[in-house]
Every structure is written in structure tokens, then in C-alpha cells.
């Protein structure tokens, strides 16, 4: 799909995530300074930036794993900074998270990994329904045969797909991808990108994708934000940013 068409597809939609004036420091080290961002319904927003620029910190602030120093973060209309633990847990059922290293529980089988979020958020669900949802999630990523395997028995690409299945099992409205293609060979990386697009189409999710992978950004992004010098430095479609005359922006797309 053409870049501008992808961008226009999200115009006029309401924001699912809205971040205003976000600041976060670790001691003297300022990581985010007056960061602002919105993600709209059905949008794939890619966040690019140098290593250590605070992308993962940002995503962890949005999901409530870290507390920002100041600023507001609204997710699905709720200000996450004021939420109580139970409300936060309820909100997290609407959010999927694909971790950089997959973060599968290595003492559990693939089935138990997938059942874990279901047991937490849908504890009244009967056994057959749970089984069906696990199978559906595995079939979505083409790995139904791995049900009783341990994560250590899977390749890196398979682990990433299982992690994606786990992130999707609660049918979230928003998915965060932290470096989804890092450490994968080009073919597997492409498979993961296509899978992400399929997911977006099938479940109409909004996605925040942190990546260094220019190919990934080109294929998947409706819009890109460049995190540089602790704030949102530039914003636009892939074409707009990759053809930018600003050398700092251009450097990311070489």
C-alpha cells in the first residue's frame, strides 16, 4: 500500500493513546524530555531512535512498568498514572506486548505460556474455551504443533511467533512491539512483519512498534516518530522522513 494512503487511512480516527509533556530521568540522566505522542485507532505507529534513546523506557511508562516523573499518559481514555493496581490490570487486558527477547516463561510449555494471561484475566472461562483460544492463537501464527514443547526447544523465530500469539490471545485493542525483528534472519524477520500486518487486519488493533529495522518501518508504518535528543524530533510517513533534508533524520534511513 502506498505511504500516503496508509497515512490517510488513520485520519479522523480517535486516539487510543495520548502522551503529553512526558518527562523521565534516572538520577541525573534525562531520558525523555517533554515527549508528546498520539496513536490512533487502527494505526501502526513506528517509533525509531538510537539505542539508549529511551524508546523502551517510553513503552514501559505507557504500560505502567515504569512511573514517569511528570506528564500525562492516557490509554483508551484512562489516565494510567492515576489508576489503581486492579484498574491497571484490567486495562492491561486490552494491551498486548511483544517483548524484544520474546520473554516466554521458560519453565512452562507453550500451552501454559498461552494459558497464563487467560487464567489471569478470564479466570471463569471453562477448559474447552481456553483450549480453543490457545489453539486459535497458535494457528494464527502457524505453530499449532508446538503446543506441548518448551520454549527452549523452539528457534528464535518460533519463540517470537509464540510470544506474538501470547500477546494476541486476549484479543487486545493495542499491541506494543519492542524490536520485533531484532536478532532474526531476514526471512524470519519478513515473516514476523507479515504476521504483524495480518494481526492488524484481523483484529483491527492499533500498534506501537519500536524498531531499528528500516524495512520493517517501511512495510508496516502508517506514521513514524523519530525519538532524538530526548524528545519527538521528527514525525511523518516513511517517504516524508526518508527523503527529509535534515541530516539527523536522514541518518536513520541510510
Amino acid at each position, binding site marked *: 500500500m502506498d505511504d500516503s494512503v496508509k497515512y490517510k487511512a488513520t485520519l479522523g480516527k480517535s486516539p487510543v493513546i495520548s502522551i503529553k509533556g512526558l518527562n523521565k530521568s534516572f538520577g541525573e540522566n534525562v531520558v525523555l524530555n517533554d515527549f508528546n505522542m498520539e496513536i490512533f485507532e487502527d494505526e501502526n505507529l513506528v517509533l525509531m531512535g538510537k539505542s539508549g534513546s529511551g524508546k523502551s523506557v517510553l513503552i*514501559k511508562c505507557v504500560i505502567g*512498568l515504569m512511573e514517569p516523573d511528570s506528564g500525562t499518559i492516557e490509554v483508551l481514555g484512562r489516565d494510567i498514572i492515576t489508576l489503581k493496581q486492579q484498574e491497571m490490570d484490567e486495562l492491561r487486558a486490552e494491551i498486548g506486548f511483544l517483548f524484544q527477547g520474546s520473554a516466554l516463561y521458560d519453565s512452562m510449555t507453550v500451552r501454559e505460556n498461552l494459558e*497464563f494471561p487467560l487464567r489471569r484475566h478470564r479466570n471463569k472461562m471453562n477448559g474447552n474455551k481456553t483450549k480453543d483460544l490457545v489453539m486459535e492463537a497458535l494457528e494464527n501464527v502457524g505453530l499449532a504443533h508446538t503446543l506441548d514443547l518448551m520454549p527452549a526447544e523452539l528457534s528464535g523465530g518460533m519463540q517470537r511467533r509464540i510470544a506474538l500469539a501470547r500477546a494476541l490471545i486476549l484479543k487486545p485493542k493495542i499491541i506494543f512491539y519492542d524490536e520485533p525483528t531484532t536478532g532474526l534472519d531476514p526471512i524470519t524477520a519478513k515473516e514476523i512483519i507479515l504476521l504483524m500486518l495480518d494481526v492488524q487486519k484481523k483484529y483491527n488493533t492499533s500498534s506501537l512498534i519500536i524498531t531499528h529495522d528500516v524495512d520493517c518501518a517501511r512495510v508496516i508504518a502508517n506514521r513514524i516518530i523519530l525519538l532524538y535528543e530526548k524528545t519527538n524530533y521528527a514525525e511523518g510517513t516513511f517517504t516524508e522522513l526518508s527523503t527529509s533534508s535534515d541530516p539527523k533524520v536522514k541518518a536513520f534511513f541510510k
Partner: protein
Amino acid sequence: MVGNFPIAANLISFFTEIGALSHFAGRFFKELFSRPFEFREFLRQCYQMGNKSLVLVGITGFILGLVFTLQSRPTLLEFGAVSWMPSMISISIVREIGPVIIALICAGRIGSSIGAELGSMKVTEQIDAMEVSGTNPFKFLVVTRILAATLMLPILILIGDLVAVIGSALVENVKGDVSFLLYFNQVFEALEYSDLLPATIKSFFFGFAIGLVGCFKGYNSSKGTAGVGKAANSAVVFTSLLLFVLDFIAVFVSDVIYG
């Protein structure tokens, strides 16, 4: 300034660690009584710690009983006091040697395993993933493990004590021609309530210390694989030290109570 005085720096770091450990223990008690209760994970941890340490504890106890009896026999023979063997062995094993040696073995087996497991879960973001899944990782990982260690240690120590006494009886049976029945009769005559109770109470504290320090080191391990190794190693070292301190306190208190 403090950097110029390594002893002062080490002392500050030691007391900071003790403070953080106490805070961690406080959080354990706070979370222990709040819902939801993770029974399934607790039972899994009891199985992992109890059942899987059984062979190690059994072998250790058996060798302990054998060696202790073999080493004591010549001295007791010299004084014509070999008939005291069952009471001497059983009291010293039940009151002191059994709990301390088996707790040290469990500090190596259970403490290091908890430290390494939680450390690696932290490094690979599994703890974050758990939190994102709507689970309180402290309750799921820490509370269940500390509780399981606290409850499993006394059982393991009792089993280890029993196997050690069997080992001792075997030596007496072979070398002294004492029947097992006679040996155990003398053991049960010698052992009193005041020998068993303080030792059992002490074992709960040993189990708590093993679980607490293992979880504390693992849960707070720094990033990277080196941090995982360090968490496992320091869990064993710190727990071993703590076990001796707890043992001293337990012996002191029981001496005050029972005289």
C-alpha cells in the same frame, strides 16, 4: 569521601543490603495475606523444592550418620562409653548437626536455584511480561517460593535426621553388633520434646532465610548474564552466613528457655 575508606564503604553497603532485605521481607508479609493466593504455583514450588531435594538430603543425612558414628566410636570405646552412642548421635544430629548441615545443603540446592531462576527471568523480561499479563510477579514468584521453602525445610530436615540416625544404626549394627531395634529404642529414650521442638522451629527460620535471600538476590539482580551468576552465588554465600547467625540466636534462645 567514603570511597577513601574501603571498610566504611563495605559496612555502608552491607547495612544498605540488610535494610533492603528487611524491606523485601516486609513486603513478603504484606503480600502473603492479600488475595489472590497462588496455590497452584505454591504446590509446584513445594514439589520442586521438596521432592527434588529428597535424594540429596537423604544421601547427605546417611553419610553424616555413618561418618559421625565412625569418627566417634574409637573415642567412646576408649572410655568404655560406647553404649551412649545412640543417645549422643541422635541428640547431636536432631538438635544441631542435622538442621545446620541439611540447611546448608539446601541453601546450595534451593537458594542458588531460586536466585538463578528469578535473576534470569528478570534479565529476559519474563517478570515484566508477567506484570503485563495482570499478575503480581512478587506474589506469584516470591511469596510462593519463600512460603514453599519455609514449609519444606523442616520436612527435609526431619527426613535427613531420620536417615542420619539409620546410617548411624547401620554402623553400630555392623561394628558393634547392636540390633536396629535396640539402637532405635535407645534413640527414642534419649530424645526429648525439648530436643525436637527448638530444632523444628529453627528449621522453619532456616527455610524462610533460604527462600527470602534467594528471592531477594534473584529479584533484584542487575541486568546481564553476569548478574544471574552473581545472584545465584551471592544467594548461597549470604544465606550460609545468615544460617549460622540464626543458629546462634536459636541456640541462645533455647538455652535461655530450657536451661
